[in-house]
């Protein structure tokens, strides 16, 4: 291998002149090497391990708590006991009622909350990577507005009255159609630049909202109420069927995201640098957008519009372990599960005997966080806006 030291005029090489960085900068370099801005590899590796452990424990705790919380209270011991009995197929007269409540209502709901949270957070992480922008969210390419059109259509036309599966199917189809529409409209010369994609997203989102509004206008009072509730986000419709579908989609989508995560890192350099580093930028972008649409679309289809999970979770994880998608993608899944699980507990307990829309809680946390993020980005030097 070639030695990389310059061969000419040794006096000019950074190796022999002691400060590689001009003298004025030396102080900042020296202090920062040990200061807060220097992020040692070992420290990042340690943080990944610690964060994984903390989030795993938190996910387990949230799962037990959310299953035990509600009008029919059950302690963590009861929950674990019921879980064991269910898995082993045993029945016990003393716990028949408990098992029935847990297995038919609580467990599906808890699982849906955890999986939907993971879907939303992973989709957000991938979307931010693909746009090289920490403020990106699946909703900018029309996932949420498309799902709303689909859901509103089947609610207003009364299809949901006869077929319960129609709502998630229509929501997912709407999300997919609008995302593909935004995608195809923003392509020019075989490429979709980030700016055109965002602008096309804004335009199509506006049209989709208008369609949704018109449909709501056409509907009767009860369907309007149903639409609004769906748009606020709620996990009250959880069933084993929805859990199975969400889990299946999550398995596929998550695997896909894990496969592309190293390439997502390189997109942070900008499209042309990523391309000349050997990444097929266009394919990666199509793949990543479809994966996040799949993940978000499914979560939204069963849980309604749950805002900001995809924004808050990856951001928090990035602060903890750094921006590399290698750890960011899997840890976002755990973080999203914890956040939505916790939000669901809050939704069911803050007002007694009421099941508040879960979207309220994620938005209350997410809105202010978004503003903080925005201000940091505006102040940020050297970051790609």
């Amino acid at each position, binding site marked *: 291998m070639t030695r990389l030291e310059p061969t000419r005029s040794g006096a000019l090489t950074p190796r022999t002149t002691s400060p590689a960085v001009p003298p004025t900068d030396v102080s900042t370099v020296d202090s920062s090497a040990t200061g807060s801005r220097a992020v040692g590899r070992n420290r990042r590796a340690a943080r990944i391990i610690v964060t994984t452990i903390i989030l795993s424990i938190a996910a387990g705790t949230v799962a037990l708590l959310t299953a035990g919380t509600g009008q029919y209270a059950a302690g963590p011991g009861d929950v674990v006991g019921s879980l064991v009995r269910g898995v082993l197929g045993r029945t016990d007269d003393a716990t028949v009622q408990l098992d029935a409540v847990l297995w038919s209502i609580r467990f599906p709901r808890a699982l849906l909350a955890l999986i939907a949270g993971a879907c939303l957070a992973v989709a957000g992480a991938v979307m931010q990577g693909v746009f090289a922008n920490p403020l990106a969210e699946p909703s900018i390419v029309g996932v949420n507005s498309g799902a709303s059109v689909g859901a509103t259509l089947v609610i207003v036309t009364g299809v949901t009255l006869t077929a319960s599966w129609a709502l998630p199917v229509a929501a997912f189809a709407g999300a997919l159609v609008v995302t593909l529409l935004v995608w195809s409209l923003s392509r020019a010369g075989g490429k979709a630049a980030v700016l055109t994609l965002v602008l096309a997203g804004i335009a199509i989102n506006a049209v989709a909202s208008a369609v949704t509004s018109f449909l709501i206008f056409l509907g009767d009072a009860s369907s309007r109420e149903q639409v609004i509730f769906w748009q606020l986000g709620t996990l009250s419709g959880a069933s084993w069927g929805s859990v199975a579908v969400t889990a299946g989609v999550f398995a596929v989508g998550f695997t896909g995201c894990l496969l592309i995560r190293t390439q997502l890192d390189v997109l942070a*350099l900008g499209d042309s640098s990523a391309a000349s580093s050997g990444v097929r930028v266009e394919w990666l972008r199509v793949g990543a957008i479809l994966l996040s649409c799949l993940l978000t679309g499914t979560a939204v289809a069963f849980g309604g519009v749950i805002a900001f999970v995809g924004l808050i979770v990856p951001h928090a994880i*990035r602060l903890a372990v*750094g921006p590399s998608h290698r750890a960011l993608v899997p840890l976002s899944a755990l973080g999203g599960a914890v956040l939505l699980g916790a939000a669901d507990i809050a939704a069911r307990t803050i007002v007694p005997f009421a099941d508040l829309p879960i979207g309220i809680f994620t938005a209350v946390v997410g809105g202010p966080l978004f503003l903080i993020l925005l201000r940091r980005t505006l102040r940020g030097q*050297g970051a790609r806006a």
Partner: protein
Amino acid sequence: MTATLQISDVHVTIEKQTILDGVSLTLNPGRVTAIIGPNGAGKSTLLGVAAGTVKPDAGAVTIAGRDLRRISPRRAARQRAVMPQDTAVAFAFTVREVVMMGRTAWGDSPARSERIARDVLEPTGLLPLADREVTTLSGGERQLVAFARTMAQATPVGPGSILLLDEPTAAMDIAHAEATLTLARSLADAGAAVGIVVHDIDAAAAYADDLVLMHRGRVEAAGPVHNVCARGLLSAVYGTPIDVFERDGRIHVVPIRALAV
């Protein structure tokens, strides 16, 4: 295998504006070719064509005789490394992580890419900054990181390597600029074909073997440094009086500052 990058009779038109009008360029192993010319002459577009990021409307780009369009991005990335003008990084990756991104196309083991990162961080003087987040660095420092990443991508440097550098020293102070150009020179001495877009004609004359003088989308002059560095030619192309003189066997190019106080 020696890789020669050859651009023949390339035309680029963007929104009815002719950017490149029949440009040809050859980058040879072991030589530094500096592309100079006034703003808007088409230098960066030419480098983009060489890199494959700008698709020409007509003409051909070949690496070692093969059409660039028929080389997969991964393979192309192993043959030529590109340092862009825009060195911003979207997220707070560390300097070391960014440099290791240069190894994307190689499928290294983590240990190997760590070693290569070290090998390029040292001569670029970035080792003390290796664990800093790039978003906290100055523009000049980020250019140095991008240069190190390009070097990492081009490793192992030899007659098969091509490096394309788009104004690598634009934001650097004079010491870093000289050090970076010295490194670029040493890469060519190790066998690489190096193409650099630079504004500093004096530096280009000092470090390059060949100069390509661009003007309004065409090559005005090309060849060994002393052929292109002619007082009348440079003054006419840049539209300002430029002096060219030789001292200690070196060609120097400086503006004639008649009106300077």
